[in-house]
């Protein structure tokens, strides 16, 4: 009785602890070939060298899933096999099944962090000798300089030890004259205000994004004269409060274009692009005192132009008045009570920045990880443009795309900008 052929997927094997991806140089089998356990089916290129990979089941090759030259992570299905012959009883579940065993227990079953005697992770027992006063050298010195009586100070350190922060508010600058030869350099301004802290957090995120993400940048001039006329008509018979500004059209067009070009709408996680079911557009809003927040419009592709305008207005007012409590600069969005949700379906999937408002013709943004694309719109201005062979003054805007070269390449980016332009040139469709 021969065993009915079983459909199995042969995946990129892991051939070393430091191998996490590989690309097929050439296939040694083709669709329809019969293979036997132990046959070499392809030659694979990795960081270190090229190596032959074997298949572990007899059967017939049904479909090659990965073309030579494409770099794929370990575990990616490479070919589909109609496996026949002896089915190995112990078809071991893939590794993540084992992870499940571990996942449940943080790093391992019955981990009791305190019981792990890593000398480094549990601070040494603090020896309490004598009844003397406990204060750090810095606290003692500062107190001496400011004439503060330490016995009157309540310490926040271990066993009530006094630290500098426990002293009455000094001017912060620790004078170093007269003290024993301290190595003290003048203390630089410490980022105390919320804006400073935000500035530092943005700097970290931007530099990390710039360092890790290989960007490519594309630009496109778009004639928005038709859009301006359209908005003029829409705004002429509504209250000033309900009028629609171009920024809303830019967000709306980006959402529709992102829905059409899914490769730019999602996240780069663990070395692979994860497309997103939803189009959640984050809008970069600059704050008066400096700093940036990126609240988002969820399922933006389903939100009409007028509704998009209303959302945009509300978000801007909230941001500028500080109501938007949590600064959601990342891909996370702020849910009503302000904590950042980074769940895959709620996280923003693409970002629009609209600094053109402040006079910049062209904006080259930096992607906010883990997203893979950022769309920028420059200033709308009248510029000479050729229409039907004639040079005329037209309302023009420069749209830019900053994209992650690991996820997509220029061709995809240009198609996205072309769709964006077409949508803005036919405003009725927004």
């Amino acid at each position: 009785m021969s065993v009915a052929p079983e459909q199995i997927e042969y995946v990129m094997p892991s051939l070393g602890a430091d191998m996490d991806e590989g690309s097929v140089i050439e296939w040694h089998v083709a669709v329809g070939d019969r293979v036997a356990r132990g046959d070499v089916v392809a030659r694979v290129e990795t960081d270190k060298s090229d190596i032959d990979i074997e298949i572990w089941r007899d059967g017939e090759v049904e479909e090659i899933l990965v073309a030579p030259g494409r770099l794929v992570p370990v575990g990616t299905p490479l070919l589909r096999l109609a496996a026949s012959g002896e089915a190995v009883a112990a078809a071991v579940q893939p590794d993540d099944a084992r992870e499940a065993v571990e996942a449940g227990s943080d790093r391992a079953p019955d981990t009791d962090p305190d019981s792990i005697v890593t000398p480094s992770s549990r601070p040494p027992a603090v020896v309490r000798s004598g009844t003397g006063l406990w204060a750090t050298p810095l606290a003692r010195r500062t107190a001496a300089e400011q004439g503060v009586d330490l016995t009157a100070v309540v310490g926040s350190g271990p066993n009530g030890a006094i630290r500098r922060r426990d002293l009455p508010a000094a001017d912060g600058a620790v004078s170093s004259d007269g003290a024993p030869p301290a190595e003290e350099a003048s203390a630089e301004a410490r980022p105390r205000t919320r804006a400073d802290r935000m500035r530092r957090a943005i700097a970290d995120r931007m530099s990390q994004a710039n360092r890790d993400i290989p960007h490519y940048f594309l630009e496109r001039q778009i004639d928005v004269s038709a859009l301006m006329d359209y908005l003029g008509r829409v705004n002429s018979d509504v209250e000033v409060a309900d009028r629609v500004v171009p920024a809303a059209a830019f967000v709306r067009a980006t959402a529709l274009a992102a829905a059409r070009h899914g490769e730019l709408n999602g996240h780069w996680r663990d070395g692979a692009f994860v497309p997103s079911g939803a189009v959640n557009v984050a809008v970069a809003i600059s704050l008066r005192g400096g700093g940036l927040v990126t609240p988002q419009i969820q399922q933006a592709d389903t939100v009409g132009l007028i509704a998009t305008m209303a959302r945009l207005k509300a978000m801007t007012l909230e941001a500028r008045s500080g109501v938007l409590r949590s600064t959601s600069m990342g891909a996370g969005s702020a849910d009503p009570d302000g904590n950042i949700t980074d769940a895959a379906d709620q996280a923003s999937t693409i970002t629009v920045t609209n600094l053109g408002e402040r006079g910049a013709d062209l904006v080259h943004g930096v992607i906010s990880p883990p997203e893979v694309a950022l769309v920028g719109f420059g200033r709308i201005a009248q510029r000479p443009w050729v229409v039907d062979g004639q040079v005329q003054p037209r309302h023009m805007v420069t749209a830019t795309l900053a994209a992650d070269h690991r996820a997509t390449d220029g061709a995809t980016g240009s198609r996205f900008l072309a769709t964006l332009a077409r949508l803005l040139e036919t405003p009725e469709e927004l």
Partner: protein
Amino acid sequence: MTGPEVETTYREAMRDAIREALATDDRVIVLGEDVADYGGTYAVTKGLHEEFGRDRVRNTPLSESGFVGAGIGAALGGLRPIVEIMTVNFSLLALDQIVNTAATLRHMSGGQFHVPLVIRMTTGAGRQLAAQHSHSLEGWYAHVPGLKVIAPATASDARWMLPTALADPNPVILFEHNALYGEHGSIDPVGGPVDITQAAIRRSGNDVSIIAWAGMVHKAMAAAAVLADQGVDAEVIDLRSLRPLDADTLAESVARTHHAVVVDEGWLTAGLNAEIAALITERCFWTLDAPVRRLASAEVPIPYAQHLEEHAIPQVDDIVAAVNRLVRDGV
């Protein structure tokens, strides 16, 4: 004259450094197990034997004591050998040659001899290779007067520290952490030899100084980014040189931040971390607002199982937790 920055990996940067040494100085030879056809255990010397021939890129039998001793003799004889010991774990077989001969010869001979030799070896755990292949013993070598010990953590240092080490008249031990080879980085292709005695501040900050080297630098930087989101502004110092230690840079930083955490992939007891903590306490005592904190591997031969190994060596969240405890609670 510096050219535009070029994207490369740590492995390729080190290979270019060795290739340039072989191309520009015919006294340079490369000795080591499987450095030729096999291309080196971590593929650093891949292809060099085809370019420079098997005499100058020479496979050795498995005789660490033998071929390290031969490297010392060749250096005495006027060559500039680059000896590759596959990993610090196997260097223990050659410890006698390095400590009793390479490091001491100049002093014992009253200054008549010197040993211009570079010994490269990998260090560090993290690949489930179990105890005999996962030690971090760079601290042992940093203990020995007569040696210089360096640990490039970035592709740029991998490219430009070797020329300086080769030009140095003393034996230089160069450690490459095994997790760095695939690291991407941009380097200046026409830069030039860099200093190998000073530390580098990879991220400036005001609340705490995190001191790390080799594989731990990247974990410290990741921890600093997390800490930034939690309102702690961490300074990250990459030692680059383990002997001599750049005490001035350490002291200036800690005097400013009043808090120090030393992160070491080696063990805690009598580790290099202990030397650094003592040095900081001696020089910055009057500006410390909390004890100097040391974060090192658990005191255990590195285990095979992934979850045990992960738990044994310091991870990013261990660094974040230790820094928060120190800055918040002074413990």
